[in-house]
């Protein structure tokens, strides 16, 4: 195995579908289409992509919840199709969202129940649960019913549940989805702690800041295919030539975006506005030559500044997801 703990080779997943009227059995177009990657021990590996890109399906295949249509993978040297019970002992999945907990019983009772499913001896179970509750900051609310928990508390409980079997590998499926910035930061801190404890993490997200902050290696998945892979620095490097020009203007009208987009060499325009100003992030093929033509199209607005910026991971992601790369 070396230090490779997850090896995915040409994973494909098509979901079987039954036609409602004719009852004819069909398969969907691939939700995951030839995905290959390797994850090393102790890494935080990011799988980035828009909604419906195939992130969750990939996680479910590696987490033994789904059988691939073709291709294969090993997790901790075990085949995901044949040796799934062996894998399940040493992994866990943490999903984001409100669901997935028994809400009529307490947080502690949830953790006890899930521990029992991993055959953890009672004494060890109770000690570990106490530690986990402290780690995720739920020790005071441990005996409260989950239905009384806030969204953030539920996510912390999800994390504790994912750690009850002290797994070697954790699959984190959008763990900060729908959380406020403060709780998201806390969750990211917990993810970093898990990595420090030597766990290997596969994280899916479409939050670029999160990926930039946490991940060692990133794969970007779009339409079931991996469209880019590498470290954050490598991904940024890939879009460096397609540099970014940022323009801050006042009195902007929607036709200005159209006008800027129509300039030869402009790949993508993203606009964010508040009551006073608008900021346009314009991806261009060559930043040096584009500043003037862009400024010309912004003539009718009040230009505060036009500057060339270093591309962020988000620029790299947008460029790859939208396909203008």
């Amino acid at each position, binding site marked *: 195995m070396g230090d490779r703990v997850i090896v995915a080779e040409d994973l494909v997943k098509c*979901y079987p579908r039954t036609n409602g009227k004719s009852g004819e059995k069909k398969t969907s177009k691939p939700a995951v289409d030839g995905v290959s990657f390797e994850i090393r021990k102790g890494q935080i590996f990011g799988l980035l992509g828009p909604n419906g890109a195939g992130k969750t399906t990939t996680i479910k295949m590696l987490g033994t919840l789904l059988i691939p249509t073709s291709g294969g993978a090993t997790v901790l040297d075990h085949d995901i199709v044949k040796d799934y019970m062996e894998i399940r002992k040493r992994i*866990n999945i943490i999903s984001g969202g409100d669901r*997935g907990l028994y*809400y009529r019983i307490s947080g502690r*009772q949830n953790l006890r129940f*899930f521990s029992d*499913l*991993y055959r953890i001896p009672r004494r060890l179970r109770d000690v570990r649960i106490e530690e986990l509750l402290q780690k995720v900051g739920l020790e005071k609310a441990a005996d409260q019913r989950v239905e009384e928990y806030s969204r953030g508390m539920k996510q912390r409980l999800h994390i504790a549940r994912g750690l009850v079997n002290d797994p070697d590998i954790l699959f984190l499926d959008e763990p900060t989805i729908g959380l406020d910035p403060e709780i998201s930061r806390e969750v990211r801190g917990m993810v970093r702690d898990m990595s420090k404890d030597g766990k290997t993490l596969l994280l899916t997200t479409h939050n670029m800041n999160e990926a930039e902050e946490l991940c060692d290696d990133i794969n970007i998945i779009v339409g079931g295919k991996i469209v880019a892979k590498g470290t954050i620095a490598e991904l940024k490097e890939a879009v460096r030539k397609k540099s970014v020009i940022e323009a801050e203007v006042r009195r902007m009208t929607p036709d200005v975006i159209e006008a800027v987009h129509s300039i030869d060499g402009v790949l993508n325009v993203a606009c964010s506005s508040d009551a006073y100003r608008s900021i346009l992030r314009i991806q261009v093929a060559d930043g040096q030559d584009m500043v003037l033509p862009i400024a010309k199209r912004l003539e009718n607005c009040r230009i505060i500044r036009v500057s060339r910026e270093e591309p962020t991971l988000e620029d790299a992601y947008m460029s790859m997801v939208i396909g203008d790369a």
Partner: protein
Amino acid sequence: MPNLYAITGSFKKQALDFIADPQWIIPSLVAPFTFTLVTLMIYPERDASIVLYAVLGGGILGMWSNSLRASGFSINYDRMVGTLESLMVTPTPLMEVIAGRAIWNALIGLLNSLLVFILAEVVFQTSIRLADPLMFFIALAIILLSLSTIGLFLAAFFVFTRASSVLTQILELPIFIISGAMIPINLMPSWSWPLSFTFGPFWGVDALQIAAGVSSTSPIPVGYAGDLLILFAITAVYLTLTWMLFKKMDGKARESGSLGRY
């Protein structure tokens, strides 16, 4: 070796859920108690043998109703609250997790028997004596396991059909009738007898009646031991079918990924 931690853990969790959610009182207590009470009231004279019949019948109805409704809904409940995938990603087979719940659900159905017993003693002032308490409780324990297995089967079966709520309604009273717990099956048309013979608890009910001192009304009298032997054999068949159904469900879930949705 089954994961005993998981079975006892899910038994306890089901007990906690039961206490936390008063809705479960309906299938486990209110409905069977009403039916048993009304049945008793239909009789113009309520002598000890009729009341004993009602206590036994009430217990079987309680266990059966709860297995049908609470155990039958068990996996669909996890689909509804979104916990099914967290269960399936553990190394414990789902069947063992549901088994703990199914045992609890059948057991709590016995509360009805207790209520009818108290009612009989206090309100109707009918004293009930069991001829052989040990034999009675052995038979009761085996019926409980048999009905738990049926609950387990239904939990998986109801995942495959959209008609689960209809089936619940359709099956509840007719299956209770064929169990012979309230109406001796020799009073039923003979075409219905084969249905009773393939329903394990029918044999258990006969064993219970023998142990309680009520004369057997089975068209095929095989005695206490014979009853239990047949009950064991039928329960083993149920268990095998249940195991196969869970295996099919697991395969389907990992193939289509649709099990987590509700």
